[in-house]
């Protein structure tokens, strides 16, 4: 079986530090494949290698069968790339930005004008076509970038954190647009994100990446099913007596307990029953439950399960920003 994206032992090191460390996976045609991980996990470096922006230290990557090192121009012709930074020219209009990129791909004349018109309509920017991009909101700019990435009609689309910095309404708009464009244009999408809900909503399969390594890879449903317990409870008490963790682990239906500061994350096969048990055991011990939440297993729980830490804990850590490019160096 041939894959649209093939990655084998791909590695990128900056000196002693390896941002991407022997990653391997394949992406099937028509799939939305998500790379999930905190900033500094190596997601953007991986995307940059696959889009020929950064040469790999070792390993191979193939896009549509073209090797990213040996045939970079063939790779560039069949991929659309939406970088993390907004790279549209703010002094130019949406139409001009699109037109110039069409020319960079060798699309000229009436064909160029038709494609630009169609794409601007597809991202609901027709009425803003002749307005300078500096007048656009963040969501509009991101939609323009998505349209620009499709100007040469690629079949594989790379998006590096497409909704970072957008407000919730704009995020949902971008999600809907991507879903529609994927279907209409028969796209294979490889995207990075550190938003769990985004990965859950958009991706057919998710690769969880941490410290440059692949720690889990499957569909969101299967990943969630792989975590013990159907519910996750977060609970804190007025005090934490000695041996309290073991007490909680011994409760019926409890599949596992992790303590983080004074908060206990409990995986349970029966959330409502565990709540009752928790209140009871606390009353017997003379403690008060100071906070309690119950939720179904999320990708956040999956991430904690596989990496041993929460996604939000590592946000912004270990990252060196180099101007707007956000090179991951550590």
């Amino acid at each position: 079986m041939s894959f649209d994206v093939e990655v084998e032992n791909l590695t990128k090191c900056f000196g002693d530090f390896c941002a991407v460390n022997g990653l391997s996976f394949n992406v099937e045609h028509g799939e939305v494949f998500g790379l999930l991980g905190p900033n500094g996990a190596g997601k953007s470096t991986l995307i940059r290698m696959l889009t020929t922006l950064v040469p790999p230290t070792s390993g191979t990557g193939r896009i549509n069968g073209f090797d990213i090192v040996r045939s970079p121009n063939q790779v560039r012709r069949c991929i659309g790339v939406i970088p993390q930074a907004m790279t549209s020219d703010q002094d130019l209009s949406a139409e001009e930005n699109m037109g110039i990129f069409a020319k960079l791909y060798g699309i000229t004349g009436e064909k160029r004008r038709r494609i630009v018109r169609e794409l601007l309509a597809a991202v609901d920017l027709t009425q803003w076509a002749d307005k300078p991009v500096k007048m656009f909101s963040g969501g509009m700019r991101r939609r323009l970038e998505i349209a620009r990435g499709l100007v040469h009609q690629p079949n594989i689309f790379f998006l590096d954190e497409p909704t970072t910095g957008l407000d919730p309404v704009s995020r949902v708009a971008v999600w809907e647009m991507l879903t529609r464009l994927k279907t209409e244009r028969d796209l294979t999408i490889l995207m990075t994100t550190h938003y769990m809900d985004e990965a859950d909503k958009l991706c057919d399969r998710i690769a969880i990446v941490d410290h440059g390594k692949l720690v889990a890879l499957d569909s969101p449903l299967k990943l969630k099913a792989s975590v013990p317990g159907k519910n996750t409870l977060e609970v804190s008490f007025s005090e934490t007596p000695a041996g309290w963790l073991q007490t909680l682990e011994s409760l019926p239906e409890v599949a596992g307990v992790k303590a983080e500061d004074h908060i206990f994350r409990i995986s349970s096969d029966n959330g409502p029953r565990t709540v009752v048990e928790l209140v009871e055991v606390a009353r017997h011990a003379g403690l008060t439950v100071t906070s309690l939440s119950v939720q179904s297993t999320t990708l956040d729980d999956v991430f904690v399960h596989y990496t041993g830490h929460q996604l939000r804990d590592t946000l912004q850590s270990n990252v060196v920003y180099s101007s707007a490019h956000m090179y991951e160096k550590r």
Partner: protein
Amino acid sequence: MHRILAIIERDLRRFRRSPTLVMVSIIMPLVQLLVLGNAFGGKLKHLVVGVVDQDHGLPAIKLKEMFQAVAANARTFDTVPYIDQATALKDLRNGRINAVLNIPPQFSRKVFAGANPRFALIEDNTDQFIASALEGTLNQMLGPYNQKPPPPLISADASLAVVEIYPYVPYIQYLLPGSTVLAIFVSAMIGGGIIFIDDKARGLHEGYLVTPISKFELIMGFNLAGAMKAIIAGAVLISAGSLIAGIPDPFNPARLARLLLLVVVTSLALISFMFLLMVRVNDPLVPRAMFGVLNTVLFFPSGAVYPVSAFPAWMKVIAIADPFTYAVHGFKELLLKNTGVGAIAYDLLFLGIFTALSMLTATLLFKRTL
């Protein structure tokens, strides 16, 4: 080719929307031309010279009359009579006057006796320009003062006749070639340096790098786009500067064509040089920090403000390698002498080779990855 044109189109569209930066590149050299050209080029006027006559004889009166005649006509200086030398010297030290002409006692007697008559110019030599101007004026005046009976019509002595083949060149005209090259350079510095690195830092180049454009196409696109803006700056400076400086027949079509050729070649040379310097730079502060240094190192050793032949050896070495030198020389030939292309062929050749080498090296050094 369409990819190169796309980069040029993008740059020129941005320039059309926001021409402020290129306007700055024109205004700065124009202001320099106006200020420096007029500051250094003019003749000194209305210096104040105190006159102390301690002799009062006929030769002393004749000397004072000649001195006052210069004051009345050339207006190099104005005279202020003093009764005693001490007061005059006190005013000289306090800066009220620029010099003191002192005619000592017994001056007239020595003139009549032919016994080495001397008078003194006591000057404030902290300003060499003023001191030299006063000395020169007085030395010129002494010729007629010492005039003997008329010489025979046919002189037996050899003499030098100086013939100037070009009209008098005021300093503002002398400065115009340098100002033109400076306008092109500032435009190259902004377009090829500051904007290039700013775009890179904002991630705009990342958009280019994911397309199938080649290194050479990218460099050519950036260079030609930058050169076009530099050509506009150079052409405006030539036109406006020629009018301001009073270049004779400034819009002669043949000369304008030759000037345009040199503007184009100079623009390409300086923009390609700028790209060579910036090709591996990522920090937006670097081109800004380099601006002043480059301006000094390239502009002043080029002969734009002072002849290269007066420089010490190490500065002459800089001048030889400096593209400004050849551009300034070329513009001097065309603007001040109205010569043909033949007179600037060597300058064009140097700038052409310089452009080719800079472009080639920049292309080799350019990283097509982040």
